[in-house]
Structure formats: C-alpha cells, structure tokens
C-alpha cells in the first residue's frame, strides 16, 4: 500500500524536479505518438469520410478490413514491422530498425483504422437528409460531405482522441521495433515495463500516473477546442455575425 501512496509523491517529484532523462522520455512519447496520430488522422479521416460518403468498388471489403484492423494486436504489428525493417529484412537497407521512425510507423498502422472506423461511424450518424439538402441547394458531393463533416465534428474529434489514446498507451509494438534504447527510443510505456522488471515499482507507477495525466490534459485540450468552435458556430448562426 505504501508503494502505491509513495508512487503519487514520486510522480509529483518527477514532474517538478525536471530530471532531463525523464523529460527526454516524456518528450519522445509525445513526439512519436503525436506524429503517428497526425499521420493517422490525415489518412484515417479522409478514409472514413470516403467509406461513408462515396460508393466505390470494394467499399464493403475495405470497411470490414478497417473494422477488423481496429483490434490489431500491437505485438503482432510490431513483430511484422520489425521483420520488414530488420537489417536482414526487405527494407533493411533503410536502417529504420530501432529508431523513432519505426515507432511512428507501427503507431500509424495501429491508429489509422481506429480513426477511420470512428470517422465512418460518426459520419453515418449524421442525418443523411442534410447532405441531400445541401446538394439540392447546389452543393457538389464534396461540399455536401464537408457540411456533414462539420456536423459530425464531435465524432471526428473523438476519433482522433481514440487514436491518440491507443498509441500513447501502447507498449508491445514500440518495444519490439524501438528496443527501449536509452536516450534514443525509450518512451514512457517501455520505460514503465523496464522499471517494473527492475522492481522499481514506485517509479514505474509514478511514470504511469504522469502518462495518464498527460492523456487527460491532451483530451481536455482537444475537447475544449471542439466545444469552443461549436459555441462560436451556434452564435454565428443565431446572430448572423461571427462571435
């Protein structure tokens, strides 16, 4: 029990003490997962919108695949990616093994289906008549899709948050392709695994607390961003002027 209580104290100390090693680990977590989420959103949101708004050959197959890949086991993704980028693998000459780039790649693979799946679901949740109405007023299909995307804004933000949550909390894949190298590829989750192995339970738990805090802060920020935009939108509609 005292271990758990001490962990909270340790977490506080970790944050205020400005240990450069710890902040490097923290920063790399943010950079890797942030980059992966941005790339995942750049691919996943258009993919999700297209799956909902357009009809092309193979759409159903693609949708099934996206849904299945939402539950990809990270360890398998990590192992598969490592076998490809390993020195003796087909992309070995790129020297991606045990680099942050490799960690971003596995996280993009994990985040994209989740963002695409949630985007698709939230687009489907918008009243289809909205799009039809927009088109009847002369909007092209893409303009109509844009109108629906604005309506589904909360769902799209949730999609990005879900993608970020998945990759920030993920350990199996980044451990395999990154190798938990000190100062190079060590992120919060892999450091927690290592500290646990070394029986530094307080430090491991403290890092876990910091990780959770970080995710909470990012989520508050993203949700606020979306809510404020929503409020401005409503005001503009009611008054006819931008707030």
């Amino acid at each position, binding site marked *: 029990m005292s271990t758990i209580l001490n962990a909270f104290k340790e977490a506080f100390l970790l944050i205020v003490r400005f240990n450069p090693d710890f902040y490097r680990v923290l920063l790399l977590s943010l950079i890797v997962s942030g980059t992966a989420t941005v790339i995942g959103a750049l691919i996943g949101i*258009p993919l999700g919108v297209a799956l909902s708004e*357009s009809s092309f050959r193979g759409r159903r197959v693609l949708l099934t695949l996206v849904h299945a890949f939402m539950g990809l086991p990270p360890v398998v993704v990590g192992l598969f990616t490592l076998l490809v980028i390993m*020195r003796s693998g087909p992309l070995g*000459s790129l*020297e991606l093994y045990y680099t942050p*780039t*490799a960690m971003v790649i596995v996280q993009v693979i994990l985040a994209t289906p989740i963002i695409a799946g949630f985007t698709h679901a939230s687009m489907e949740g918008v009243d289809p008549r909205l799009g039809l109405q927009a088109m009847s007023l002369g909007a092209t299909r893409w303009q109509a899709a844009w109108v629906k995307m604005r309506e589904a804004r909360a769902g799209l933000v949730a999609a990005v948050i879900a993608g970020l949550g998945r990759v920030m909390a993920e350990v199996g894949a980044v451990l395999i392709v990154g190798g938990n190298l000190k100062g190079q590829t060590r992120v919060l989750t892999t450091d927690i695994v290592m500290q646990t192995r070394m*029986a530094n339970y307080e430090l491991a738990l403290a890092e876990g607390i910091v990780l959770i805090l970080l995710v909470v802060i990012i989520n508050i920020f993203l949700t606020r961003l979306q809510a404020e935009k929503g409020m401005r939108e409503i005001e503009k509609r009611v008054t006819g002027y931008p707030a």
Partner: protein
Amino acid sequence: MKAKTIFVFLLVIALSFSVAAVAGCGTGQPTSLILATTTSTADTGLLDYLLPEFEKAYKVKVKPIAVGSGEALKMGERGDADVLLVHAKSDEEAFVKSGFGLERVEVMYNDFVILGPQADPAGIKGDKSAVDAFKKIADAGATFVSRGDDSGTNKKELNLWAAAGVNPVGQPWYLETGQGMGETITVTDQKQGYTLSDRATYLARKDTPQIVILIEGDRQLLNPYSVIVVNPEKHPGLKLNTKGAGDFVEFMTCKKGQEMIGAYKKNGVVLFHPDAKGETRGMGDYRE
C-alpha cells in the same frame, strides 16, 4: 470524383511513407552499432553505465538490444546484430565454429545462485553442489520457476537439470515464465519457489524480495560473459558495422573498460568481475 478520391488517398499514404523513409535513410555507411545482449547486462544498469563512455571515446552510436543469449546469437546468425555480449559458453563456441562469429573473447564473469524461500522446503541450504540441490527440489516437488526463454540462464538451468537426471518440463511444480530474469525473480518471490538467477540481477533489484540465496560458490555456477564480433563475410548483402564491433571488443577488453566493469557497483556490491586475458584484441584475426 471516385478516381480523385482514390488518388488523394494514395498521395497521402505515399507522402507519409516517403517522409518516414527519408527521415531514417542512412548515408550508405552503417550509422550505428547494434549490440545484441542479454537481459542481465541491461537490467543491472551495466550498459547504461558503460555505453556512454564507449560512444564518446569511439564516436559511434550504440543500439543495445537486450534479449536472451539464445536470441542474441540468432540475431548474429541472421546478421541483424554487429556484436554480441552474451553468456552461453557452449552455444557461443558452436556459433564461432560454424563461422558466424570471428572470435569469442571473454570479458567478465559473475556467478549464478540458486534462490529460494527462507523456509527452504526442499532443504537445499548449505549444499555444495548445485546439481544435488536440483535433485532435492525435484524430489520434494517444490515449486521451481524457470525463465523458459532460451536465455543463457535458461540454458544453464537446463544443463543442471540434465546433470541431475531430471526432466522437469511438464511437471506440475515446474513453472516457465518466458520472461527476463527480473520478472522471473518477482514470480518466484510471489510463489515462494526456487529459481536459478545470475547474482547481478538479484543484487541490483531495488526491493529485495523475500527469497534468499541458498546455494552459491559451486564451480558449476560460474557465469562467463564474452563478446563476439559477427562475421561480415557470412552476410555479404548486409551492411554490418564490423569496425564498430571491433571497437567495442577493444573497449571492453582494454584497461579502462575492464576497470570500469570492476568498479561498477549496485547497492554497494560489485556485480561483474573483469577477466579479459592479455592485451586487447579487437577484431581478432579479422584485422590485417
């Protein structure tokens, strides 16, 4: 419209991959040195202590990959590592003999110990022979926790079982964690069982568990670590950093490196004893 959609997707995907590729692209020369090693050198903090010094002195970036000795040797066989720091003597000799490694150079040793609960239900405490102790554990059917991960420690343990004439695999009292030494000690502690551990990992733990050293000092339990440069001629198609690998052997066997190993302490105890023989050799026969 449809074609445009697909085109945009492909463009985005291609862009993100090319960014990734450019970011990681080497300059033709290997930019880093891959050191495949055992979990014990990482979990004890030895690597975090030695490598910055080596990187500074030889201007090379090391990527230490902590796996079991078995997996480290396999990485060497595939050419996925440049140099190995391992402890599995007979496998290492076979590795060098079949041409995958240039030379096996012993750099340090520590020893294995048999850990167990203070109550010692199998009554092994004070035994001179590790093999006898293993027999007693099997006879008592006392819980034994094995690494079960093909690591150097696991290989050593299996050799001891073979010498004791016991096949423990599949017995109800024999647990295999498949994890590193640190986790295996934790499981042993929780289960109040016995296990074979290298002394360093046990001593380096912050929270000393409820299990204690019951058997130590048997010659059978010596645990030599050696470095091996992976033979680049076995992997003509791959870019191995053989120069860096030779530098690492040189560093580990030179006066400074050996002194650093001997000076490394955790909780006030020396964990590894340097024992490189004679002058530093670096690349062995490979260097002209």
